[in-house]
């Protein structure tokens, strides 16, 4: 167990050092998210959120919350596949597969590192939103719990893309399309009526809903939490199974070292 924790810690450290060594990429990611957020705010995106959550004066805050959840989520789903594609090119993927613990534990290290980096991005967006746009947000324990549960499920979704990346390597375009679809299909930008079952299968939808209820002082029912929990567990289980199958397929077909 301690060996496993040491290895995860080593991966977090390596991944953080690598992320911060590409400063320009990091800064440009933040810039893109801020520009997109500003454009959406000035387009009065999310007005309907205010009426749905009985909080019309704070619709921008409700939108910001969804936007933060979405930015964490896209980072989570793109992490695994981008990392695998990049490591295959760098030639370090095979070395990681030769670690003394299963590769998904190393992915967990990257996931934690990614969460820390995403938190910096979120902090910058919140600061920009508060100071420049006058839209602020009060994050409480329920919001954080909803975020963590959402991310667990979204990482599961990322494992599926990661598995595909092991075989096809270049699935970045698919990830990009999925990120945009998620922006509009998970009640991130607006909400008129209770979400459909199809939407609720995506953890981000339930996560957004719970977080917005939490900041609007609305009742959050145990069934809301249960929906989020089940959706996240489902994606984690399916994601792990698909990743395992793809990893075996890649080893069977000698694809680990190709890019």
């Amino acid at each position, binding site marked *: 167990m301690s060996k496993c924790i040491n290895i995860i810690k080593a991966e977090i450290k390596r991944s953080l050092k690598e992320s911060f060594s590409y400063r320009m990429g990091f800064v440009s990611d933040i810039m893109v998210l801020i520009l997109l957020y500003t454009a959406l705010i000035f387009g009065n995106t999310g007005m309907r959120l205010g009426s749905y959550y009985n909080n019309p004066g704070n619709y921008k805050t409700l939108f910001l919350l969804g936007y933060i959840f979405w930015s964490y989520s896209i980072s989570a789903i793109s992490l695994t596949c981008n990392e695998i594609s990049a490591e295959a090119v760098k030639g370090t993927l095979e070395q990681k*597969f030769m670690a003394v613990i299963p590769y998904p534990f190393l992915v967990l290290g990257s996931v934690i590192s990614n969460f820390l980096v995403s938190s910096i991005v979120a902090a910058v967006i919140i600061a920009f939103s508060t100071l420049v746009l006058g839209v602020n947000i009060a994050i409480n324990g329920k919001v954080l719990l909803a975020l963590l549960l959402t991310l667990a499920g979204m990482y599961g979704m990322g494992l599926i893309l990661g598995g595909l990346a092991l075989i096809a390597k270049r699935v970045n375009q698919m990830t990009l399309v999925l990120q945009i679809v998620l922006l509009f299909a998970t009640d991130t930008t607006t909400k008129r009526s209770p979400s459909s079952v199809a939407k609720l299968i995506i953890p981000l939808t339930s996560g957004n809903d719970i977080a917005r209820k939490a900041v609007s002082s609305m009742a959050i029912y145990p069934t809301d939490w249960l929906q989020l929990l089940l959706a996240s567990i489902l994606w984690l289980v399916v994601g792990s199974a698909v990743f395992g199958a793809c990893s075996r397929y890649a080893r069977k077909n000698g694809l680990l070292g190709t890019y």
Partner: protein
Amino acid sequence: MITVSHLHKKYSKGNIVALNDVSMDIKKGEIAGLLGPNGAGKTTLIKIICGLTIPDSGEVIVSGIRMEEKTRLKIMEKIGAVFEGNRNLYWAISVLDNYYFYGSIKGKTSGQIKKNIEKYADLLKTKELLSRQVKTLSMGQKQRVAITAALLHEPEVLILDEPSNGLDIDSRFLLVDALKVLRDEMNMTLLIASHDVEFLRKTVDRIIIINNGIIADEFENIDITTDEIEKRYKISGDLKED
């Protein structure tokens, strides 16, 4: 130390038979060279031994452990490997950071890694490179750093794929000497895949010829001259004799 029995591997893409009934045995403390032209099956064979590629049939035993899904991770503790090219390291971080990362993922503690950096960085002359980012290193330096990283968990078996590619003469001779020290002083077993006849002639105890996915021949290094190898197997290398 490494026993390979009746390995078969066919890639469905392109319908290529990479290995056809390959068997070999490498003794503890031996340096074995796997010699063959590009596409002979060398890389497939070493990736199967490293557990990165699953064979269609056949058996691999490393340090007395049969390679299976449930034993693969145990075998990973015993093997260090450096694959072809300079693609084994993280270029954006320092050599030292790479060392700590690679030592850690092989299950070593920081203290053990620090001790082994002293030992192996000295052997491969990478001590003065510790603070440098990998991307600033020459090809020869990267290769030495990658081999040092593969040694930090003190593996019983070191596997190298085309280690002499792109190295200048000085780096090659330094590498030859270091590999012999690993065998002579640390009783390590080495398997080196290469198409560089001269490099293998200078380094290994035994040469195994692989071509078209089969073991075509094998002999003690002293039994044959470079010219004979080049003529008989139509493989050439570019490291000049002293």
